[in-house]
């Protein structure tokens, strides 16, 4: 992680694809500087087009959300809460001895590559596949643009690309730089991250690092540091997990993400029961009013 230099897993060549090792991203907002290098590197490597020059007025976040042409998104969260061991005193305007509680958090959001992926289960064409490293990949030459995956993603990551942009119509999302990984390279966003806020590596290795990092932050006064890694829900764990300060809702992350297909059984049961009830009601209507 920090200070490992060339020994970091972000800089090493690897053969995870050939060895079928499960890999992941660990994103740590406490070291992120909000430079958006991950966004730019992602777009450059994957030839993702720009999606409009719109100033949002929401801190420095002019990206807004993940989508067909945004596979990395750096969130800029301004909160009136104490940051770590910030010295909080009386009001900064007065002759106080400290500052108002305030923190500015950057978190680079990305496709979570779920263990049980909603998009993959919904895809009728087989365009979305699971790769050797456990990531979820959209094959854009197979995708027919039906959009079922868009509504099935519990995180709102995948989207269809609108018309004026190149390759419009198909669904796009983060590929986990599968093309780079096949050649032993690290995904572009992790490679460029100057502070190693984005760490790429073996999933089990990253989970151990993340747990250690949370402990370290607790010791340094970041009391609300926690991991966002929903393993107990129907998503069954994610390959890109996050360290967050505070609640996941502040980052637009669902606290209990669910794969929509778990509702299939109850939905079909309800539909079947309704059908039976409708038939009985019709028969009764004929029996009584004939």
């Amino acid at each position, binding site marked *: 992680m920090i200070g490992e230099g060339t020994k970091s897993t972000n800089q090493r060549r690897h053969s995870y694809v050939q060895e079928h090792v499960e890999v992941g991203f660990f994103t740590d907002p406490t070291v992120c500087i909000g430079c958006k*290098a991950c966004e730019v590197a992602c777009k450059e490597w994957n030839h993702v087009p720009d999606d409009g*020059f719109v100033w949002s*007025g929401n*801190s420095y976040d*002019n990206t807004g959300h993940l989508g067909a042409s945004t596979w990395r998104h750096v969130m800029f969260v301004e909160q009136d809460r104490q940051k770590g061991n910030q010295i909080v005193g009386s009001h*900064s305007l*007065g002759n106080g001895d400290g500052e108002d509680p305030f923190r500015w958090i950057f978190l680079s959001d990305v496709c979570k590559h779920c263990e049980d992926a909603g998009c993959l289960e919904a895809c009728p064409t087989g365009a979305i596949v699971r790769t050797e490293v456990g990531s979820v990949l959209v094959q854009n030459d197979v995708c027919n643009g039906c959009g079922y995956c868009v509504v099935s993603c519990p995180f709102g990551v995948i989207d269809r690309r609108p018309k004026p942009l190149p390759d419009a119509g198909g669904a796009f999302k983060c590929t986990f730089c599968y093309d780079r990984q096949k050649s032993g390279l690290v995904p572009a966003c992790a490679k460029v991250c100057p502070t190693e806020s984005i760490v790429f590596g073996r999933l089990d290795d990253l989970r151990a690092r993340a747990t250690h990092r949370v402990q370290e932050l607790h010791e340094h006064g970041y009391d609300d540091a926690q991991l966002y890694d929903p393993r107990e829900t129907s998503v069954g764990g994610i390959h890109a997990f996050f360290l967050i300060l505070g609640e996941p809702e502040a980052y637009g992350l669902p606290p209990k993400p669910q794969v929509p297909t778990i509702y299939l059984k109850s939905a079909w049961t309800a539909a079947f029961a309704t059908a039976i009830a409708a038939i009985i009601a019709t028969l009764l209507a004929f029996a009584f009013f004939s």
Partner: protein
Amino acid sequence: MLTTYRLTEHHTAGGMSRFLSHLSELQPEMFAEISPELARELGVKNGDYICIVTLRGAIEARALVSRRIRPVHLNGKTVHQVGLPYHFGTSGLVRGGAANDLLSISGEPNVTIMEAKAAACNIVPGRLPRGAAFEEWINKHVPTGGPANLHPEQPPLDTAKGGENPPGGHGKEEKE
């Protein structure tokens, strides 16, 4: 007081980065960061257009109201800070007011670099008038009460004329 700074997305005055779509979309417009206290005083909301006026010129920008910018108390006076990225200009994929238009030409003799990090300014809510209306507008809104000699090596005006320093003004000097 205004100060100027860089954003990570752009390079210097944007001559290179504002022509690249992947960088331009990340910071697509000129903005001025002001504190919620100043915004309340001016009656400005986040995203409104404001004009920043100095002795040297005026530009318009979108107001980005943020608690990150704090007013400071100096000698019992509240001084508001205005943060301006200086990456914008008149051409490229994204355009906007150039913060450098506001700055005085003042050399720092020790390091031979321009002193461009602090200047007094006025803020006027609304869009910047163009054309002939601009001169009238800037004379109305230009900060007054500051020193009239804009350059440290400029001879003081009062010695030549034998009178008082006229109040600072951009277009005013020719008029008077």
